[in-house]
């Protein structure tokens, strides 16, 4: 996890396009400038970044389902629960499942766990649009390779 670069997942560990599910993992860094303010002497992974972790996990699922043709953008959150504190050094296991494939939007159920215990979950709505330019798509493809996106699972070449 590179919080300062908004890279909130480290690796995709499973992507099942038939089941429309994904699993990712991320290790919360032991040190970050963010923890200097959140909070002094009591560092906690900010809840908004847990939400972003779930959103990024969900986003990669959608990118896989749309074969790198479309980009999901966070649009709405429902039933968000931040159930317990997440601390520096914790290993997050995130997962998501497509709840609904709409026209130009998708709804995903996502959750995060630490040591098997659920720490956060949410229902997330995304707007899904064609990539605004080839450079953006290329960036996402390169980024996908860095986080072990299983290219063999999609028709993408």
């Amino acid at each position, binding site marked *: 996890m590179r919080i300062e670069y908004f890279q909130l997942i480290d690796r995709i560990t499973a992507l099942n396009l038939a089941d429309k599910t994904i699993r990712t993992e991320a290790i919360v860094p032991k040190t970050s400038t963010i923890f200097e303010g959140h909070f002094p002497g009591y560092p906690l992974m900010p809840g908004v970044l847990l939400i972003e972790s779930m959103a990024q996990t969900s986003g990669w699922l959608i990118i896989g389902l749309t074969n790198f043709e479309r980009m999901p953008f966070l649009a709405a959150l429902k039933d968000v629960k931040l159930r317990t504190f997440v601390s520096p050094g914790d290993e997050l296991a995130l997962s998501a499942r497509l709840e609904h494939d709409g*026209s130009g939007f998708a709804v995903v159920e996502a959750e995060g766990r630490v040591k098997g215990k659920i720490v956060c979950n949410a229902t997330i*709505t995304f707007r899904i649009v064609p990539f605004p330019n080839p450079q953006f798509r290329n960036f996402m493809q390169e980024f996908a390779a860095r986080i072990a996106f299983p290219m063999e699972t999609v028709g993408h070449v």
Partner: protein
Amino acid sequence: MSSTFDTVANIIAETCDIPRDTIKPESHAIDDLGIDSLDFLDIAFAIDKAFGIKLPLEQWTQEVNDGKATTEQYFVLQNLCTRIDGLVAAKGA
């Protein structure tokens, strides 16, 4: 159409916190009811689930943007319900 309208109106009332009795077949979802595009995603989600269809929102938006259709054709509720009925019928055909 009446049962379709009731379902759609109930979805709109619940999703957007709009008094049910203000939602009429001739209401325009955007112009009369003030529903924005994000709220309409919630409505589309609920309609898709309720009727087992996929409202072609992208196609409709494109047609409106291209000047090939008016928003009234899709977003006046009685017109929307007619299109929902058509999608349901097409699904069962």
